[in-house]
């Protein structure tokens, strides 16, 4: 594939956190069992004035602050999320307007559970490759929902990342990508419903594990690489345990997973999860290092990426926006009662 890749990137994670142990206590569960079982210490919580539009704009602005490109050269913006603030009216137009990319820009919102953001990267790659656009902006961002008391409540969090895709000045070359998609109803939210439903353990082996394994193997076979060829690996992270387990299944080591595994500290940012993980890796990656990424979206599908960091990464003005580690460190805790208010879980007439 010709040189197509990441020109710049930015992430955003809301500042508020709630500890898993506090959620467990509210529901009469043993905090240690929950925290240990899921591998999640705390998760991010969107404040009342934060939604997928604001998170996407923050991430997009961070990406643009780090590079020197004219926003008008961004020919396409795709925002992947399962918590778009509007059912009808795109998040992407708000982002486009906020960063000054309107009106000569193709915009659409994506939804594919937790992998809509990586699907947006693939679309932008194709548009760049075909010379239909100069730059594309792919965003994965969520303020994911969880019914009170559901197991998802310990994980569903908020955050997002934005990637500028192009041919010039790429800091990381995307060597190859592929997808693995089937109709597997492991997790869903019907139109008009406030909370998602899921098939319990069915979300494991036939869903998350099968799709990520098959997609990852397919990509490595296609390009003839093996796990030890990579410095970093990022998987979708619905909890703190699955990414390490699937890494082991595929032959990656915990060390390769570590830098991109953020779920224990911020929860599952859904469409943002693998993309914020990739952003965290790019925060520290050096020229020549190789990154493997496989996202997962329920319903179900995976997108795999083989990425090589280029010399240009040294020229990226990373300091112009916060690193993922800084976003994680900048936090303030809320208790469960405050959480219910911010997440609109209270009912009154």
């Amino acid at each position, binding site marked *: 594939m010709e040189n197509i890749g990441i020109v710049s990137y930015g992430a955003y994670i809301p500042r508020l956190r709630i500890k898993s142990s506090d959620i467990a206590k509210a529901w009469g569960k*043993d905090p240690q*069992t929950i925290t240990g079982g899921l591998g999640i210490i705390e998760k991010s919580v969107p404040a009342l004035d934060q939604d997928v539009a604001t998170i996407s704009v923050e991430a997009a602005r961070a990406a643009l602050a780090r590079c020197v490109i004219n926003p008008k050269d961004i020919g396409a913006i795709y925002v992947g999320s399962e918590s778009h603030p509007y059912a009808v009216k795109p998040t992407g137009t708000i982002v486009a307007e906020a960063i000054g990319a309107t009106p000569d820009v193709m915009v659409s919102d994506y939804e594919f559970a937790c992998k809509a953001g990586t699907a947006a990267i693939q679309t932008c790659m194709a548009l760049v490759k075909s010379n239909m656009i100069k730059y594309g902006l792919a965003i994965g961002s969520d303020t994911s929902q969880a019914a009170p008391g559901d197991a998802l409540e310990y994980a569903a969090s908020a955050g997002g990342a934005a990637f500028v895709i192009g041919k010039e000045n790429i800091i990381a070359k995307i060597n190859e990508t592929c997808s693995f998609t089937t109709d597997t109803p492991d997790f869903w939210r019907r139109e008009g419903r406030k909370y998602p*439903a899921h*098939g*319990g*353990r*069915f979300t494991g082996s*036939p869903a998350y594990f099968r799709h990520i394994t098959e997609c990852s193997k397919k990509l490595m076979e296609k390009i003839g690489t093996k796990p030890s060829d990579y410095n970093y690996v990022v998987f979708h992270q619905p909890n703190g345990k699955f990414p390490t387990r699937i890494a082991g299944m595929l032959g990656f080591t915990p060390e390769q997973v570590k830098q991109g595994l953020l779920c224990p500290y911020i929860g599952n940012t859904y469409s943002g999860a693998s993309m914020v993980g990739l952003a965290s890796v790019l925060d520290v990656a050096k020229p020549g290092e190789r990154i493997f990424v496989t996202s997962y979206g329920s319903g179900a599908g995976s997108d795999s990426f083989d990425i090589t960091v280029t010399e240009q990464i040294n020229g990226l003005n990373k300091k112009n926006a916060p690193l993922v580690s800084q976003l994680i460190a900048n936090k303030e805790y809320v208790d469960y009662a405050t959480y219910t208010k911010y997440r609109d879980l209270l009912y009154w007439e």
Partner: protein
Amino acid sequence: MKDVAIIGIGVTKFGELWDKSFRNLIAEAGAKAILDSGISGSEIDALYVGSMSAGRFVGQEHVGALVADSSGFTHLHIPSTRVEGACASGGLAFRQAYMSVASGIHDIVVVGGIEKMTDVVESEATNILAMGLDQEWESFFGITFPGVYAMIATKHMHDYGTTREQLAQVAVKNHANGALNPNAQFRKEIPLEKVLNASMVAYPLGMLDCSPLSDGAAAVVICAADLAKKYTEKPVKIIGSGQASDMLPVHGRENICTFDSTVHAAKKAYKQAKKEPKDIDLAEVHDCFTIAEILAIEDLGFVKKGEGGKAIENKITTIDGSIPVNTSGGLKAKGHPIGATGISQIAEIVMQLRGQADKRQVKDAKIGLTHNIGASGATCVIHILEAM
């Protein structure tokens, strides 16, 4: 009354079988049993199938006809009957099939059992299972299966000094056996501490004191005993069959630590077989919860009432113990696809009596017993089998 023998067995793997449908599973078990028996399809006189709640689990009733159809026997137009008795559905189907051959109405019958439980979410499965309790007196007030068995366990601990460790030992033993059974849902040994520290479901029963939700099917072929040698070298004779019922809710029973249905069904089966508990070489008993296995070995007369916990602790029920119990892994480790359970118990005993149980083979096994309970003991069906 004619003597009846088992000439073929077939079981599917038990577990969360998301890639197999209800009809796939029963057809697979039936085909395996028929192949194992050496009969041809056209020799089958009738089909019986045990299934507790196909309607609620997979939206399918009229299971009798479905089984005949999906097994490829539509053209034979043979009778095919579904039998239901909560978790005893499989055992009851087997008894109906047995009686139909013993009476001389049929010569060769295939009887299966099936449940496909993982197509619904766990909370729904719990509600469906609770329909086996008394809706008006029990389920309506919110109690589910673990709750009922937890009360029984608490009373057993109070009356006889049974301990949580002894309950846990049942799970440890059955997991050790399940590890040796290629068709078991859980093929892994678990240490005692893990059982004791598992999430609490209903005190004193933790997660690992409970049998799982499972998909699976089992089938056996039975025939008039005088025909059996024509088909197989190693037929297994049904020498005793007993069934009994009891008050549906537990609250009115004289002693909730005894299942009278087991006591009465056992009495009938032992009498017909002309055997006593000490004559039994091994048994498959209904361990839906660890306490249930303790009740079973007491009520079947293997040990005195109240001594079940001690017996487990003293390891008399392990594969090399004096009365091996649940060599298959039991409901706990093999899995508990409700309707399939009673038939899979028969299949395990037949394997043992044929000497085909491989690593879990009980030495010199000649006589085996199966014990299948419906819900919290309102139905019990027991069979005693002997190698011919």
